[in-house]
């Protein structure tokens, strides 16, 4: 009995020890990337990671920064807050990173923001759009298009150019991004003289939403505003057409995915969304980014674009602040100051500059699903 007892205790200690040993070497500038690589929103985390990886490889090919190669360290947080906090602590204390390309969801960003801020390590999110993620946290940034920028400008554009006045709003109740965005959409519609004729709610992961769509049948509206992710958006489009409602969808960057077309096919045409990334815009830097991503058989979307920009934002700030040692707190402070004062940075996800809260202010790309004539689709930039 004694042996088994000691064995168990030894196993526990061994695990604890192996967890804590750091492995940072002096001659590299380490950048951490964390996000969901497994679980239901893994696709966003993986695409954010692929954009960052591309940027790091490019910078290293051009000789790295201040004479040092960049090293990218990434861990999976499954989008779970406890794991996200563990990963952030590991990146800061074990891997001693210069900066972190943070979580893609607002919830996880709320959890890790304080830790990164207190330890004086910059964390930038390429996906969190909810209000208040960066409030009074000098070290917390994000290069996403804010919902509070995107939604009002999109609704103003739609009421003016397509004179859509009446909207039905569908919200995904167990998705914080969707709940927040629906609120902003509703305010924008009312302030632009439009009206909300019906409100329905579904939840992420639903496969059966026939009941909610049937409830909309006796209302008349020009478009259905849906603030959730692409999976549910495609389902809504299909169910609308199945129940004979021929109306487009309006949404945020959650709709920007090829899956909407793959599932809903022609039903997706005419739907409009705003996003921080417009693949079909004829801007050279965007075209180049897309071809590089296609070469690596990776998808070029908003998350990979903003991940790519995030790394370059770090690189700019590190170059200007002459950073060569991640472990020194002053260098990290100087790098933060440089990053915060970035103005008119021409990124793949649009021209941006940081406000005093650390949010990137950008002009939204309003895009529409159109038939590309070859049996496929494309996102026509309409603003």
């Amino acid at each position, binding site marked *: *009995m004694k042996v088994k007892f000691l064995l*168990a205790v030894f*196993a*526990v200690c061994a*695990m*604890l*020890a*192996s*967890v*804590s*040993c*750091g492995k940072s070497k002096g001659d590299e500038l380490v950048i951490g990337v964390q996000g969901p*690589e*497994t679980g239901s929103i893994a696709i966003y985390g993986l695409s954010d990671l692929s954009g960052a990886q591309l940027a790091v490889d490019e910078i290293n090919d051009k000789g790295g920064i201040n004479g040092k190669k960049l090293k990218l360290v990434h*861990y*999976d947080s*499954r989008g*779970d*807050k*406890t*794991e996200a*906090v*563990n990963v952030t*602590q*590991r990146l*800061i*204390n*074990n891997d001693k990173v210069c900066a972190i390309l943070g979580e893609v969801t607002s*919830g996880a960003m*709320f*959890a890790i923001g*304080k*830790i990164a801020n207190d*330890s004086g390590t910059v964390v930038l999110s390429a996906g969190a759009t*909810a209000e*208040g993620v960066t409030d009074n946290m000098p070290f917390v940034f994000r290069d996403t298009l804010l919902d509070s920028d995107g939604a009002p400008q999109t609704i103003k554009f739609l009421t003016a150019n397509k004179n859509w006045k009446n909207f039905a709003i569908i919200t995904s*109740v*167990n*998705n*914080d991004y*969707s*709940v*927040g965005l629906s609120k902003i959409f509703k305010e924008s519609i009312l302030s632009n003289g439009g009206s909300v004729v019906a409100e329905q709610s579904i939840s992420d992961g639903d496969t059966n939403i026939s009941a909610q769509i049937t409830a909309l049948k006796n209302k008349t509206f020009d478009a259905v505003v849906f603030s959730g992710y692409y999976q549910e958006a495609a389902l809504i489009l299909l169910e609308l057409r199945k129940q004979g409602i021929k109306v487009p969808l309006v949404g945020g960057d959650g709709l920007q995915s090829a899956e909407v077309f793959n599932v809903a096919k022609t039903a997706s045409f005419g739907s409009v969304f705003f996003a921080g990334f417009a693949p079909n815009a004829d801007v050279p830097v965007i075209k180049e980014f897309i071809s590089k991503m296609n070469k690596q058989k990776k998808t070029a979307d908003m998350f990979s674009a903003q991940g790519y920009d995030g790394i370059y934002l770090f690189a700019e700030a590190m170059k200007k602040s002459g950073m060569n040692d991640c472990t020194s707190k002053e260098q990290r402070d100087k790098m933060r100051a440089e990053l915060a004062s970035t103005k008119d940075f021409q990124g793949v996800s649009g021209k941006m500059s940081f406000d005093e809260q650390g949010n990137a202010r950008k002009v939204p790309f309003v895009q529409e699903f159109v038939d590309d004539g070859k049996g496929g689709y494309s996102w026509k930039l309409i603003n």
Partner: protein
Amino acid sequence: MDAIFNSYTLQIITMCCINIIIVQGLNLISGITGQLSLGHAAFMSIGAYTVTLLMLDLNVPFWLALPLAGLIAGLAGFMLGVPILRLRGDYLAISTLGFGEIVRVLFLNSTTTHGALGISSIPHYTTPLISVILAIVGFIVMFNLTNCRFGLALRGIREDEIAAEMMGVNIAKYKMLAFAIGTGFAGIGGALYACQITFISPGDFAFTRSFEQLSMLVLGGTGSLLGVAAGVIILTVIPEVLRFATEYRMVMYGLALLIIMVFRPQGLFGNIRVNL
């Protein structure tokens, strides 16, 4: 030395202590009294939301809000006990699972808890020291409870309810007390969790969290307090150690659970006469 005790390991130690407190509560309910509960995370969420709302909306100080959170979660456990403790075995397990999901949906839809948006900027009061001390206090309280007449009565109920009633034990009252104390521990754990992670949303407390807690209990060995500590530490540390495995991490976690249950059914410290 700082390589060992930097804030990364301190963060893991804190989470271990919080889980130990919660699983000690589950051990009293499912391990010692034999009432299998699959909704323990719901009481953790009640504790988390109580301490948050008390501190943010009613600005009650932390040292008062924490015990209150435990009390209210314990009360909820007591009230849940009334209708469902007549049930036995799998029926009880499934109704506690149902209760857990209902609590999650209620938090998801109530405006005071901001629904799916969750509540952010909760003051960060939980320090590793507090959680270690509370875990030890919990350990002592549970040890005293299980090694006295109250604990003996609960163990008797687990062995054979009819014989226990025949020997003059009011099993309904004892079960409800065990439930109340167990869920109280979960409430305190939930409150510490909220003040550690500083942001809570209903999604954090779904039935997967209850399964996680039950796995920690059974892995360590139901009914043994040392088992609780070992089970929690191992299942909290395994995901960290498996970090290198990137996408295979969760498959290996599932396989580890499977293998341990098959090769060590009674858990690491189960059925060992040292009734620690």
